[in-house]
């Protein structure tokens, strides 16, 4: 996943917690082997190679993850879409920092983008692509999914208090800290990552943030975020950062991307349809900079 995972475990037995930490940190490594777009021998690479030509049977947990991502895609009306690899490639985000593609190339990539091009057979748990060039990319849920799996494992081991994150943009809070009800997670200011915008209280909840400050490139003074709108084929704009809190980190991972793409009104509509999350969006102010934070749903956020 090209991401560093960290875990903070709380409990009375240091040796046990060290073993537990080492054990759960194997999980993202295992999932990387399955979900990576960089490794040619991952299940996702295998799917992308073969599914244009044949039905590819998936391991059940991966099949479930893909169908879950597709449900989130439907709920977000395509603002989040796991079948967006062609677009990511077109913009040069696959391995590089990005490039501004020709409009024709974007149109071409859009023809190969979207869950509608995937045919799923639940009986055989197999997937077939409607045409060559379609690429499934689970980058926007993989990190969160890994955190969910790690949290499940920690619970099974009897750990009651932990804070885990993947690349700091996705966090899972298991229980609360030793000295309080809930974990406090700071949100950074899109214009100044050293500055704290506010603090969110989390207990048995996940949080993910998508921001234009994380990964972007600039051409002639214009900034292009790595977060693409799969409906238009172009980087999403209008929002500086979108933070989502929900029960599962896979969901928050996908929904923060969707909220970033959808903007304030779109995210409100999404919340009406699928109310199992809360969000805080920082819209872009007219003329740049950050506008006032907008809360959607019930989020335990204290602005700093």
């Amino acid at each position: 996943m090209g991401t560093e995972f960290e875990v903070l475990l709380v409990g009375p037995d240091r040796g046990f917690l060290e073993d537990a930490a080492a054990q759960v940190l194997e999980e993202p490594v295992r999932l990387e082997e399955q979900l990576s777009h960089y490794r040619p021998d991952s299940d996702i690479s295998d799917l992308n190679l073969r599914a244009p030509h044949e039905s590819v049977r998936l391991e059940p947990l991966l099949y479930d993850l893909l169908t879950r991502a597709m449900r989130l895609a439907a709920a977000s009306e395509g603002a989040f879409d796991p079948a967006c690899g062609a677009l990511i490639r077109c913009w040069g985000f696959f391995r590089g920092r990005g490039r501004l593609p020709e409009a024709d190339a974007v149109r071409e990539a859009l023809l190969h983008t979207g869950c509608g091009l995937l045919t799923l057979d639940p009986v055989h748990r197999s997937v077939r692509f409607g045409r060559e060039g379609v690429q499934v990319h689970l980058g926007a849920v993989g990190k969160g999914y890994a955190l969910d799996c790690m949290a499940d494992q920690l619970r099974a081991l009897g750990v009651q208090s932990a804070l885990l994150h993947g690349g700091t943009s996705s966090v899972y809070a298991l229980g609360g800290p030793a000295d309080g009800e809930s974990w406090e997670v700071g949100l950074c200011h899109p214009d100044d990552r050293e500055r704290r915008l506010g603090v969110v209280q989390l207990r048995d909840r996940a949080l993910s943030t998508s921001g234009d400050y994380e990964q972007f490139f600039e051409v002639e003074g214009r900034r292009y975020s790595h977060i693409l709108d799969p409906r238009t084929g172009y980087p999403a704009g209008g929002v500086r950062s979108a933070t989502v809190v929900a029960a599962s980190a896979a969901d928050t991972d996908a929904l923060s991307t969707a909220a970033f793409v959808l903007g304030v009104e779109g995210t409100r509509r999404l919340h009406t349809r699928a109310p199992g999350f809360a969000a805080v969006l920082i819209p872009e102010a007219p003329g740049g900079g950050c506008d006032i934070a907008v809360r959607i749903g019930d989020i335990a956020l204290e602005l700093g």
Partner: protein
Amino acid sequence: MNDEQNVSRRDLLRGGGMAAALSLTLPPSVARAMLAAQDPKAAAEEAAKAARNATPVRLAWIGSGVQGQNDMKQLVKLPGVEIVAIADIYEPHIEAARKIAGPNCEVFRDYRKLLERKDIQAVGIATPLYLHAPIAIDAMNARKAVYCEKMMAYTVDQAKDMVRTAERTGALLQVGHQRRYSPDYHHALDLVKKGYFGELTHVRAQWNRNGSWRRAVPGNDPKLERLLNWRLYRSYSRGLMAELGSHQIDVTNWFTGLHPTAVVGIGGIDHYKDGREVFDNVQVVFEYPGGLKLCYQSIQTNAYDDFSEQFMGTKGTLIVSEASGRSMMFRESSAEDFEFAKFSQNKQKVGRRTGILLDAGATTRQDKRERTAGTALANSGVSKNNWALALEDWVDCVRTGRKPFCDGRIGLADTVCVIAANEAMERGSRVRLTDEMFKV
């Protein structure tokens, strides 16, 4: 295998004895995956044809811990394969396995009851080491095809019993040395066979980690300690040499076509004094016919260099690793005919030296003639991992009755080496490995 030992290393690498010493064929699953990487469309047509003709295979899995679950995840991707039963005694592992195998999978606490099910054609075994042989032998006697995780058996006698049972009953026995199903390793072996590295004189291999190797036990319950941390106790485990080293000793045996004749070593419980009974660091030297040495190390206090095997010859060095993108070649300054140009687009700086990243794409482009002649060339674009290919090949063998690429005799040779290495470390003396030890 004994014939192979008579081939001297010199002959082996000059090409004379190569055909006799090294297998020239690829496991079909590996060949298919390589075709798919080069021509997915043609491979898909083949796969579709195969899927239409594929008879259903009903499998069972015994031992559903971490490794068992990984193996099962590979199997359930294959067309026509169904895992109809699992056996285990630990509830959380059963629960995890059922998520992979599906809700219709029957759960047994006693594997012997599972073996009574007549419709099960094949069973995989990923239990603690000391249980491999009794379960595999019962399974083969029940006429089931067997995939047994490595190391094959806890004792040499057990390993021999497994081979004898396989040969007597005609049951299929494949051992989980999955590097034997790695396109990258086959590619590397091809280069060794072509003499790129000159005469191989030394092999260095290591599997280094920084961590206790201890599984966390739920709720710290002492009743579960030995069940989950069986690798740390001598009644069930042969320690690091078996769990990690056995893969790499097998690669050395495979690439040289030889068995070692002696081993010395030092190990200790020096850092993790937590009640474990197996060494937390091992370093051994094996001697092979003709003087080739394998220096092996596995430590748990420093992960530098993690895991790889380094073949050192008079003309160059080959580093092979399961870790993606780690396989490299280095030329000796005295070797002028190394044919570096063939691979030169993949140069990479490692420390002060420039190496060449092993990428079969370079050789396939350069060597079209060989490719059309069907010479085994790995391709780094292969879309399946070694475990998947090893298990796919096993299922193929179950369907066709073909002999496995990694069979019980390979597993036996590896078991002999591991047990001798442990003995050398425990006794603090040189242990000889005779031809007799490798015979069934």
